């Protein structure tokens, strides 16, 4: 008899520890999946779930608070996702919370993230529904990223050329930027020009007012325009020869600069003419 009890307790211990291990495993896995303990359900409607699956985690503030319980398609453009969430979290989820679907890690396990809403203070009910932010599809992201990356490429290339010409080129603007003297002289020139044109314009007004000179003036104006056109072309050619590496952009820039100057001059001339014409009319 004593021999019998000698093995019985060992057997009993063996069996109970073994079963305990199994029950513990079941319990902990169940706990992980929210099978035990208080839970509540909420649901949310999505256009697409981007591969979310039943059993994926639900996160709130970055914490796993539950799992996706059911994914049900109701029509061609909406899917209802219902989830089980620990009851203790419920007080933090308000009615205006929003659900979104994202990826977890590089390998792309999907997670459903609940983000708190801006203002509501009403706690969500069991079986309640929350709004969803539509998941951004990876394709869309890739498309927009590609577009902006392309743009950035073009911009940075242009920027590089521009800044190089600014630093090394001999263009007017470059010199203007680099050279103090030049800047001063330009401003002097401008002020001289201003005062000079005033006097000139007076004379001209007088000349113009004479109708005999009117035709001449017009002719002169046209010639001037032509001359300047030629001058511009020449200059461009020169520059191309000088700095072949410099791209067309710079030329344009310079041309623009030139044009702007021309414009100014023209305008001033026009003004002067106008000023001459005015007294003419009055007369």
């Amino acid at each position: 008899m004593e021999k019998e009890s000698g093995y019985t307790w060992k057997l009993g211990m063996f069996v109970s520890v073994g079963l305990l291990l199994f029950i513990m495993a079941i319990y902990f896995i169940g706990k992980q999946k929210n099978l035990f303990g208080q839970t509540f359900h909420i649901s949310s409607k999505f256009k697409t779930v981007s591969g979310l699956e039943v059993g994926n985690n639900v996160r709130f503030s970055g914490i796993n608070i539950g799992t996706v319980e059911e994914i049900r398609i109701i029509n061609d453009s909406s899917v209802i996702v219902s989830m089980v969430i620990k009851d203790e979290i419920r007080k933090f989820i308000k009615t205006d919370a929003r659900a979104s679907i994202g990826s977890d890690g590089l390998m792309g396990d999907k997670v459903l993230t609940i983000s708190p809403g801006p203002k509501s203070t009403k706690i969500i009910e069991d079986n309640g529904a929350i709004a969803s932010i539509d998941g951004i599809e990876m394709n869309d992201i890739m498309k927009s990223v590609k577009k902006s990356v392309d743009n950035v490429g073009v911009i940075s290339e242009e920027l590089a050329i521009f800044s190089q010409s600014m630093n090394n080129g001999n263009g007017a603007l470059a010199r203007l930027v680099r050279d103090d003297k030049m800047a001063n002289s330009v401003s002097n020139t401008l002020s001289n020009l201003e005062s000079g044109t005033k006097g000139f314009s007076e004379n001209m007004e007088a000349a113009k007012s004479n109708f005999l000179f009117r035709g001449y003036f017009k002719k002169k104006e046209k010639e001037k325009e032509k001359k300047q056109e030629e001058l511009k072309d020449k200059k461009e050619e020169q520059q191309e020869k000088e700095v072949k590496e410099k791209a067309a952009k710079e030329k344009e820039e310079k041309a623009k600069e030139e044009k702007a100057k021309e414009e100014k001059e023209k305008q001033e001339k026009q003004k002067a003419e106008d000023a001459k014409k005015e007294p003419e009319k009055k007369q």
Partner: protein
Amino acid sequence: MILSLKNTFSQIGSATLFASRFFKEIIMPPYETKEFLKQCYAIGYKSFPLVAITGFIMGLVLTIQSRPTLVTFGAESWLPGMVALSLIREIAPVITALICAGKISSGIGAELGSMKVTEQIDAMEVSAINPYKYLVVTRILACTLMVPILVFFADAIGILGGYAGINIHGDVNFRRYLTQIIQSLEFLDVIPATIKTFFFGFFIGMIGCFKGFNASNGTESVGKAANSAVVTASLSIFIIDMVAVQITDLFF
């Protein structure tokens, strides 16, 4: 060739009859509870050290072996989950079953074989003890119930071995390790694997008993019975495993 094929089929046929007799006899009283407990002790408790050592080594080795690959992918943090998953789903059940086939199946085969040869089974028969019930039913039942428990132990000890393996290269908190494992597990990993082990246990016991019970006369046949019990049981474990995995795959 044809003769050996015919032999194989007749073996399978009589094994099937033998197994079906188990289900008939198990429900009919009297129940040999005492002998059953004794067999549980001999099969379960006595095999525990062997299973524990194997389980520990499997966990340790699996961790060390999987580590380099996972490190290549920068997924080192998956190591506990992966080791636990492969242990629980496949390695622990199969390795434990193979160990049991080696230890239990051959033991039963040799024991019953020698009982057969020395007329002990006949002696039971003539003293109106049902030898099938007393020897076979108790052993098969004990095997069917003890092998799953041994597998639970192998799982747990294998996970401990994995922890040891992880700590060779880094320092992981044990709680963190367990949490990672639990997080990576689902019922689908545990339940089919557990159901599978019952079949392993049944076949280990059944094949051992069948080979021993049908040993022909002569001492030589005892060795033959033990040997062919191990071979057949090991083979059938792999076949059951394949079937079980396919069924699991089919339904889930």
